[in-house]
């Protein structure tokens, strides 16, 4: 204990005396923190834009056409299988999901917003809960629930009538829908989402010439909610056994299989990892140079009777303090920057992700300093006399 208090005394005195030098390193760590937190927030934001709708689903399972590789746009499921799956034991609810894209025309000039056009079944799993207004009323009503992100990026309000433009065959078609509800963030495929009743969706979605005359609606996937969430795996096997030509994914698997999702996340994670690695090198380099400059000084400290543990603890305390100050500066900077970002920028500060990044940042100090601490401990007190054994 006594040794640690002497070490702390020396560490703090040195930092204070050379505060300019130490502050500079803290600032560098602060900038690294800023970068790491922003990469993490960007990963969270982009990932969120991709998976938001799926991750907020009340259902546990997603049913695809067999061999679709869990790709929602590649999967086609007809309504016969929909009636079959409803009878599988242990399932409490099934909802249809159809996905497509549409252009939402904004008032005034030719401006439009690219949106995901999702067909869901009113009153069933898959239809998001509104935070304002009401749910969809009927399976073929000309109604729409808007993702909050649509509101943020346009002047549309609850009760308005919106116009969307889609291509059917070779013609551009215009449809109007009444905004009955607004839901929280529900982006899909990095686009804000419009939720319409499934049969309305089938009518207004973009179609090829061949599809126009095809009367049986086809969904992409089914969303399944089970009676008892702990039985998910059993139900999953049961669905694949009882229904022909389907495969099922858990919500997590469905998210991982979203086009580009894992590639995007692993790219950003690699960037974050590399930035942390650079941080380790910066701290390691700085403290190593410090120790090299202080060889005779550390030799004197040891010669007059400071134990190795005092020297080691002083280094550990210094490195930890500098890292904590740097991370605090960086976190503050990140917070200030985050206030100035418009909603279009996919940056989301999520508590858990940020906390993990901060812990990783706090660890880079001690990790980077290991080499210099080892070096300091090995300096011989004989160096005080300009000798070495």
């Amino acid at each position: 204990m006594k040794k640690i208090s002497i070490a702390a005394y020396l560490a703090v005195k040195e930092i204070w005396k050379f505060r300019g030098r130490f502050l500079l390193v803290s600032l560098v760590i602060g900038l690294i923190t800023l970068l790491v937190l922003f990469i993490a927030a960007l990963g969270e934001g982009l990932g969120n834009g991709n998976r938001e709708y799926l991750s907020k689903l009340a259902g546990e399972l997603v049913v695809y056409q067999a061999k679709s590789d869990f790709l929602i746009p590649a999967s086609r499921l007809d309504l016969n299988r929909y009636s079959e799956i409803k009878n599988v034991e242990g399932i409490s609810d099934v909802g249809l999901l159809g996905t497509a894209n549409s252009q939402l025309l904004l008032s005034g000039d030719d401006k439009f917003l690219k949106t995901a056009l999702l067909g869901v079944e009113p009153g069933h799993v898959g239809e998001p809960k509104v935070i304002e207004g009401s749910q969809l009323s009927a399976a073929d009503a000309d109604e729409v629930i808007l993702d909050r992100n649509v509101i943020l990026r346009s002047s549309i309000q609850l009760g308005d009538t919106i116009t969307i433009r889609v291509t059917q065959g070779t013609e551009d078609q215009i449809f109007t829908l009444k905004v009955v509800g607004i839901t929280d963030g529900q982006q899909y495929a990095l686009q804000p989402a419009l939720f319409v009743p499934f049969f309305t969706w089938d009518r207004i979605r973009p179609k090829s010439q061949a599809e126009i005359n095809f009367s049986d609606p086809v969904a992409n996937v089914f969303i399944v909610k089970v009676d008892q969430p702990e039985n998910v795996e059993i139900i999953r096997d049961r669905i694949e056994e009882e229904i022909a030509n389907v495969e099922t994914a858990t919500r997590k698997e469905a998210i991982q299989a979203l086009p580009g999702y894992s590639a995007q996340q692993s790219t950003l994670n690699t960037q974050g990892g590399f930035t942390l690695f650079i941080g380790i090198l910066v701290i390691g380099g700085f403290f190593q140079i410090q120790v090299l400059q202080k060889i005779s000084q550390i030799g004197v400290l040891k010669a007059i009777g400071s134990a190795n543990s005092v020297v080691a603890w002083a280094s550990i305390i210094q490195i930890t303090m500098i890292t904590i100050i740097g991370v605090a500066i960086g976190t503050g900077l990140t917070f200030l920057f985050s206030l100035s970002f418009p909603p279009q920028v996919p940056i989301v500060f999520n508590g858990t992700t940020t906390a993990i990044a901060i812990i990783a940042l706090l660890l880079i100090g001690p990790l980077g300093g290991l080499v210099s601490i080892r070096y300091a401990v090995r300096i011989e007190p004989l160096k005080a006399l300009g000798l070495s054994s």
Partner: protein
Amino acid sequence: MTTMNALETKSVIKTYQSDSGLISAVDDVSLTVASGEFVALVGPSGSGKTTMLSILAALLKPTSGQVLIDGVDLSGLDDFKRVNLRREKIGFTFQANNLVPYLSAVENVELMLRLNNKLDKAGKLRARELLARLGLGERLNNYPGQMSGGQQQRVAIARALIHNPSLVLADEPTASLDTERAYQVVETFAGLIHEQNRAGIMVTHDLRMCEFVDRVLIMKDGKLTQILDDRADIRKLSSARN
């Protein structure tokens, strides 16, 4: 009761293996220094005086022979006990980079007490008094970078004495000082060693500084070749041009 010497060495030998064979840096040196005695260890460079000092300081283990500080045989001590012995029984001043640059003059002196877990009110007062006696009463809160070489050396002297060590070792205390300051520093040093009854050893290549010591040990090629303890002989040595 026999009077115990603060420092005693018996047939100390230190050899190094080099490319050209075995080199004896210190060759069969036996000496004693009593409490209250200030001796100079002199000799040309390469004579082994710094190696000898390192051995006396428990920083280097001799190849053979015995070193006793306050009657304690160093060869029986492990590294941990050597650190403790240096901290409690020995005071040091070094040629360069003597002081901790981020501690003020008084903090540098107090550091010895702090390390020995003896930093109380009385200790703080003694540190200030000692610095004042060394003419640094106005410089207590100055950092080493703000002081001259002579002032830094005097702070180092205070640090070497503050914890009441048995043995005080000084490595070239005047190396970076001009003649006048060098005389002042060594004179004060000698005065304090006598007054506080410590055993003091000063390694120096500057023979003029021998004027203030009680005995001069002259080393050459690792051997202790001559011991001057006659006042007249010492005066003759220190006044010779070198």
